[in-house]
């Protein structure tokens, strides 16, 4: 029968990337379990046989723990802790013993008891908890394999680029099969938070999960294109489609490989002018990705998520715990925590007075303005940030500063909070740097004044452009006017950098402009000290910086500042030499 071509199966994108390879089916181990009556005088030794199998399984799990710990770190290895405890579960042991005492063989007893437990998991409504039955199944499988003296399947014999197809993959499988030839995982069950997904992300191997019946549809040797970005696989693609993907894949692979080489290299131009590349993050879960891409600091830690999906204000303790996690993980590198940047409407649900609809929310009561009007919100966040500062290098940053009075008022509150903590003997970093976002044109214009009272600034280009050009970027009727290349925007940025440098303070940009490689050279030429970008852009920006000459880009940038229209700016931009 000819193979049908181009069958597309949709699942859940669990780990990004594209992979092409031959299917390697990892069969579910089918155990043939037969009830065997054990005579009375052999029941004690049957129990002993069970105990031995459990001990052997424990040794295997410990080895897996060490292996995961070596490759992915302790956080991932903790999954195995739960598995070891399942082995020792007193309820399970009691029930299994009882069946053996009544005359069942060990295999049947284990299977029967675990089967009952699994059924109780299956009746759980919450998907996340339901999925935990997989942990139970995995341990059961291992005990049975040891009882039956069966070898677990391994993939050491792979000979070509392969995509592992399985109904389910256990964390142990994921790690033990970390062969170079494994290019992707295709799994029937699971979601984005399943162990397989987390492990695949940690290993950087593309994966699509939740494909339901894929493993029964796919045969060994089928060619598979796995697209972990959109969460689909293409079975037996036609030459045409294969070629298209292969091209993309090769390109993507080469690019990533090239970029990854830059990870530990310094951020400096060919004439040794250095800059900083930091990461923007939204929560503590993003720190490891940032570090893996070579971030040497967090330039913008947005704290808005702390306030989402809840019915009460976050407590000081919650602020502290979340921030401390990031600060500890960043160890010697700085973490720039921005105080909350939300409008009043977002706080109504959290117990703040209903403030009513605002005509112009972007020009209304938000960010630092709201914090100054309702200091309680501000104070509990500041306390959390200060306490976290005891664990590493924290920089505090205020959003939406429009003039010096707001800065002073915010600092006054900060001082009183510090005083309170000192009195209570709560430790924090007395030298914590305090900075301002420069995202309102008025603040940019008086940078010389602000610069005397802050330790650093970071330009929020998204808002700066929006406010300078009076354009709402999400309004499609005017979105075309939104342009980082507008001469007014470029001059304003340059002016901020120069004024800040006169006051001997560092300037960063944490808006999207910093992460757009087209602008890297100009911003560098303006004298920008720090680029704070999303983790995926870090290496791209580093690549540009490492391939230009500071002397040259400075000249080009100066020329650009003379331009009055976009066309001439674009023309000059295109002359930048990349070495």
């Amino acid at each position, binding site marked *: 029968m000819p193979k049908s071509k181009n069958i597309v199966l949709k699942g859940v994108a669990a780990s990004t990337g594209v992979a092409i390879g031959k299917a390697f089916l990892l069969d579910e181990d089918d155990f043939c379990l037969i009830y065997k009556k054990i005579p009375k005088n052999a029941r004690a030794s049957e129990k002993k046989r069970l105990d031995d199998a459990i001990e052997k399984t424990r040794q295997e799990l410990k080895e897996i723990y060490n292996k995961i710990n070596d490759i992915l770190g302790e956080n991932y290895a903790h*999954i195995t802790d739960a598995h070891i*405890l399942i082995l020792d579960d007193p309820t399970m042991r009691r029930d299994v013993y009882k069946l053996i005492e009544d005359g069942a063989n060990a295999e049947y007893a284990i299977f029967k008891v675990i089967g009952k437990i699994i059924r109780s998991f299956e009746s759980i409504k919450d998907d996340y*908890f339901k999925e935990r039955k997989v*942990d139970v199944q995995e341990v059961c499988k291992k005990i049975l394999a040891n009882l039956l003296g069966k070898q677990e399947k391994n993939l050491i014999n792979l000979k070509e680029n392969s995509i592992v197809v399985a109904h389910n993959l256990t964390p142990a499988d994921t790690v033990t099969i970390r062969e170079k030839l494994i290019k992707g995982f295709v799994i029937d069950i699971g979601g984005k938070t399943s162990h397989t997904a987390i492990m695949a992300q940690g290993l950087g191997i593309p994966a699509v999960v939740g494909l339901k019946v894929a493993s029964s549809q796919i045969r060994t040797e089928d060619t598979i294109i796995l697209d972990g970005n959109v969460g689909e696989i293409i079975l037996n693609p036609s030459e045409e489609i294969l070629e298209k993907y292969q091209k993309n894949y090769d390109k993507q692979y080469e690019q990533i490989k090239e970029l990854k080489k830059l990870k530990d290299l310094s951020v400096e131009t060919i004439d040794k002018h250095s800059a900083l590349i930091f990461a923007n993050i939204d929560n503590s879960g993003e720190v490891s990705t940032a570090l893996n891409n070579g971030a040497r600091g967090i330039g913008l830690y947005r704290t808005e998520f702390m306030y989402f999906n809840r019915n009460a204000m976050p407590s000081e303790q919650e602020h502290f715990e979340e921030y401390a996690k990031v600060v500890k993980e960043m160890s010697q590198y700085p973490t720039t925590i921005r105080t909350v940047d939300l409008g009043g409407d977002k706080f109504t649900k959290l117990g703040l007075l209903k403030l009513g609809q605002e005509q112009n929310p972007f020009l209304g009561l938000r960010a630092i303005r709201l914090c100054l009007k309702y200091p309680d919100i501000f104070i509990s966040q500041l306390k959390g940030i200060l306490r976290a500062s005891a664990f590493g290098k924290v920089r505090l940053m205020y959003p939406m500063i429009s003039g010096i009075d707001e800065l002073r008022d915010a600092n006054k509150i900060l001082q009183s909070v510090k005083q309170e903590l000192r009195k209570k003997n709560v430790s924090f970093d007395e030298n914590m740097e305090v900075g301002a976002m420069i995202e309102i044109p008025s603040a940019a214009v008086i940078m010389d004044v602000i610069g005397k009272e802050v330790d650093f600034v970071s330009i929020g280009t998204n808002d700066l452009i929006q406010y300078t050009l009076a354009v709402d970027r999400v309004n499609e009727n005017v979105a075309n006017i939104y342009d980082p290349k507008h001469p007014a925007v470029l001059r304003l940025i340059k002016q901020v950098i120069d004024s800040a440098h006169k006051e001997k303070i560092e300037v960063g940009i944490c808006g999207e402009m910093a992460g757009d490689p087209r602008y890297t050279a100009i911003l560098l030429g303006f004298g920008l000290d720090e680029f704070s970008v999303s983790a995926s852009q870090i290496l791209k920006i580093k690549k540009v910086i490492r391939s230009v000459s500071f002397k040259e880009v400075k000249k080009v940038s100066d020329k650009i500042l003379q331009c009055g229209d976009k066309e001439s700016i674009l023309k000059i931009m295109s002359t930048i030499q990349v070495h």
Partner: protein
Amino acid sequence: MKEKIITVSNRMGLHARPAAMLVQTANKYQSSVKIIKDDFDIDGKSIMGIMALAAGQGSQLKFIVDGPDENEVLTELESLFKSNFSE
């Protein structure tokens, strides 16, 4: 014998890792630990029992501890919940 109602406050609820931490704590003591949620009661030293409770954030669990070190085990369990299992 001691009883106490504890609310699950960590974001992910009693999934695999918090359940493991709970059992590890309970195992350090001689006292028996029983956990009751809705109509279910399970052995607090049984990780599968705990995971099958499907106790998400906000669930109320009744702990019944009994034995020579019941005060100690209850105190340590409470602080484990308070610390949100270092989530």
